[in-house]
């Protein structure tokens, strides 16, 4: 019981600290709030405003009005409601791909750096070779042949194609960090490899890793949007990518009245990306061990 309370108190303190540090950077905090809003809107929103099932012929391609805050699309459906219902897939794809690719990259990169010698040079040579293969065409061909139709498989595939670049960077980070005095001191004190990796190395690489992870996430969103546009990923659910392609296919792109039905999903993607990027930039302060102890 006491252990649990202790743990709760410690977690609470750490969360409080994180918040304090987050608030120091205005843009970062704003990005954090926007991310929370987008995630909430995408997961809770559909319960309150479920997707419209039928077309509404009287209100096709309307502009902004009080009834339709972001206008309506070619089926007369409300753009705002559509964008709320279309966020879930995008958020899942982004997080899943980002986390998976980063995880593989960190494990392989750190392993390569620690192993050194021939293992290291062979691994990095393979990574270099992999980096020369054009990824998006390969992804498109693979997705077509494998007939991808669910977002989880798609995310896994994108993560598998995307990790090598990051792993090379993780490796060089680890190599440079290992030569720092405090790591060498920890090695000499024999604090244990696990301890050194998790207590000394990772905290100092966290902001770098997160910034790279967010890069992977936005890349995944764009790749998914592109695959939908090429007609490779089916239109099973109405996510932002599908909204853009559907509007494009309906010639909405050339119809000034319908402009909101394409601007809405585009805006949503750009907003999500901007929020992620500004949040990532502020993470340096959150993870920096020196700042953490001083708060």
């Amino acid at each position: 019981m006491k252990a649990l309370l202790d743990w709760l108190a410690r977690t609470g303190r750490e969360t409080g600290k994180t918040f304090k540090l987050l608030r120091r950077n205005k843009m970062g905090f704003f990005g954090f709030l926007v991310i929370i809003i987008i995630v909430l809107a995408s997961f809770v929103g559909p319960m309150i405003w479920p997707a419209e099932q039928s077309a509404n012929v009287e209100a096709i391609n309307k502009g902004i009005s009080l009834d339709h805050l972001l206008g309506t699309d070619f089926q007369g459906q409300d753009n705002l409601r559509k964008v709320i219902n279309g966020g879930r897939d995008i958020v899942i794809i982004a997080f899943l791909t980002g986390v998976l690719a980063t995880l593989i990259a960190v494990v392989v990169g750190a392993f390569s750096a620690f192993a050194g010698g021939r293992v290291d040079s062979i691994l990095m040579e393979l990574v270099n070779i992999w980096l020369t293969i054009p990824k998006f065409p390969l992804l498109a061909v693979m997705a077509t042949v494998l007939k991808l139709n669910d977002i989880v498989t798609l995310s896994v595939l994108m993560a598998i194609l995307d990790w090598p670049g990051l792993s090379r960077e993780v490796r060089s980070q680890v190599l440079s960090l290992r030569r720092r005095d405090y790591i060498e001191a920890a090695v000499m004190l024999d604090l244990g490899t696990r301890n050194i990796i998790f207590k000394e190395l990772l905290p100092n690489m966290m902001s770098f890793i997160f910034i790279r992870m967010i890069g992977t996430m936005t890349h995944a969103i764009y790749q998914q949007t592109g695959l939908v546009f090429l007609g490779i990923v089916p239109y099973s659910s109405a996510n932002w990518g599908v909204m853009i392609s559907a509007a494009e296919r309906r010639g909405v792109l050339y119809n000034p009245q319908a402009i909101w039905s394409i601007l809405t999903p585009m805006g949503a993607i750009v907003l999500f990306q901007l929020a992620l990027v500004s949040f990532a930039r502020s993470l340096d302060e959150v993870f920096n061990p020196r700042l953490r102890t001083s708060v």
Partner: protein
Amino acid sequence: MSSATVSPTLPTARNPLFFWLERIVSNYLLRRILKAIFSIWLVTSITFILVRAMPSNPVEIMIQDLTSAGYSPDEARTQAATLVGFNINQPMPEQYLEYLRNVLHGDLGKSYKSRGLRVTDMIVQVLPWTLFSVGLSLLITFTLGIMLGAIMAYKRDTWIDHLLSNLAATLDAVSPYLVGLLIILLLGVIWRIVPITQMRGAMSPGIQPAFSLEFFADVFTHVRVLLLVYVLSAVGSWMLTMKSSTIATLGEDYVTVARARGLPDLRILTAYVGRNATLPLFTRLAISIGFAVGGSLLLESLFTYRGVGFLLSRALSERDYPVMQGVFLVIAAAVVFANLLADYLYGWLDPRIRIVGGE
């Protein structure tokens, strides 16, 4: 796959083979070439596995399609075999070897949808348009990026640097596909400057390729917006690279010495700073030339510009597997060779690298 080629380099036994491998490994250029060949072999194998060796693979589906289209099962099999270019009745390893042999001879099979057309011919037909559009845009982007990047570095921390840096970072962050959509919306729909719908294809119907003003004007009319999107979506990262590279060069001792000697600013900019700062960008340029062969899958489809990317996107949506496989292979090979070129070029342009020896 990889272990087979890599393991012989491990010092397991001292034999002549190992000796030669050691010699090869220690030769920089030879090693790069071997790596390039290995990469292309890897890509070729991946596409073969994807198209042939996966369960319920496209070739079987192709046969099923042909059977349901009225061919007898035997006929369907022969038909499919001529399309993919290797005998599908043989055991898998032999199919693989035959496929490799065909690829080496430049035979990429025949299109499944456009019956009888050879994939190689299809690629050769659209290749000039992609090379032209991407090549031209690359030239513009490179020049613009170097100039703006140098300005940013020289005017560091002034308003012009902040403006350009933010612009470059934004352009770099947004995907080319969204930039393309936005440009269509702005130019074609909101401002109505450019008739986007009339610009589909690489040239207007009825125009014959000839060395005439009319032909060039028409080609340019069709490519201009695509060109703008290519430049906009790539120039940001060029600017940022050039900026950081120039800043690094400006801090070098030889620049300070040149200043102390009282050399004119223009001479310092061109002969001392510019030449050294653009070095890393030349490597990137070489790599980008490789991507010029593939063009952009998304942008060429968005603008219906009939280049290699468009060919691939059509093959993807029609599930035309031989074309898909062939185009992807050509794109990948181009990028791999461009990387090889970049490695070599860098050593040639920068003597310091040669002296240090390779890496």
